[in-house]
């Protein structure tokens, strides 16, 4: 692998960080240089920015106002007097909290928009394929040979999948 390849690979791994503005210093300069010299990378970066804007514009998952207020209302650390007799109780409390944290359902990791796009596309194609399977051979005579073959191909694929999965 050449230095150029390595640099390109590094730059691709930094697209999201670049798009959200978290790159700084040497990394930012290196990324800017890579973007200048690589049109494909630039296009990918522009798409990342576009997705970011689209997600930001989406109102689907806003944090409830009440939750935000409660989070902001959590007081900062205060200086407290240590009562030695309270240590066992505190230790027990810490243990309980630790167990509770260990048992609580973990939040799903954030989905990479690129992965989500591929998954969505794949699901869309599955629906297309499954819809084509309903047509059997009742395809209109006006249908072009291309689409007819497409539907037949899709249908055969579905039948193979059904056979393989026993579905």
């Amino acid at each position, binding site marked *: 692998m050449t230095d150029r390849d390595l640099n390109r690979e590094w730059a691709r791994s930094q697209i999201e960080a670049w798009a959200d503005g978290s790159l700084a210093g040497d990394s930012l300069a290196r990324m800017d240089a890579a973007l200048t010299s690589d049109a494909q990378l630039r296009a990918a970066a522009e*798409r990342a920015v576009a997705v970011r804007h689209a997600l930001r514009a989406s109102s689907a998952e806003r944090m409830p106002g009440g939750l935000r207020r409660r989070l902001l209302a959590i007081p900062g650390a205060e200086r407290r007097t240590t009562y030695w007799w309270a240590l066992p109780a505190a230790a027990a409390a810490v243990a309980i909290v630790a167990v509770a944290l260990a048992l609580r359902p973990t939040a799903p990791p954030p989905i990479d*928009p690129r992965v989500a796009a*591929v998954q969505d596309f794949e699901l869309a194609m*599955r629906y*297309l394929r499954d819809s084509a399977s*309903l047509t059997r051979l009742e395809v209109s005579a006006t249908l*072009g040979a291309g689409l007819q073959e497409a539907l037949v191909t899709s249908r055969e694929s579905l039948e193979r999948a059904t056979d393989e999965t026993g579905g």
Partner: protein
Amino acid sequence: MERNVRGLLGAVALMITTTANAQGYFSFDEIPDIGEPTVQIDLPPALLGFVNEAAAGASPEATNALQGVEYVRVRVYENIGPNMAALTKFVADTSATLEREGWHAAVRIREDGENVRIYMKPTTRTGVAPGTLDGLTVMVTDEGSDEAVFINVSGAIQPEQLGKLAGAVGMNGVFNQVPGARPAPPPPGQPRQ
């Protein structure tokens, strides 16, 4: 005055819709308000770029099939209940509209409560391969499984390649080979097998 403005807005909206349909884009905005869809997929060019990138690393055939595809959208409704009549009417009305606007009915099936329409819009663009479509729209309502599926793919579509791609997805791993891209879950209920 207000009526004039409304009329103008209506005309503009109609022009936009007509133009959009002429380009192979089918508006899902007219689907009757029967609640949130179970599946809602909107892949505009920016997101399809990611799919293109993934395909480029996996299969030249997939890249060819994707070339020219500009928009992919899917809506799936389940547990429709008494709203099925409204959806069936929507499919009938939309079919008439699409046919008026130059879409060809490739498939029409209506039997046993199952209503399948596949429309294609032959391209009006110059300089593209013969057989290219501007749009492909699928509408399925199924009273048996109590669900409806709407799909629209627009752009400059090579139907044969798109069909092959749809057939290959999730089978021999067009996208399964892409790092980080897990196979999509099967459509809910797998009602179409």
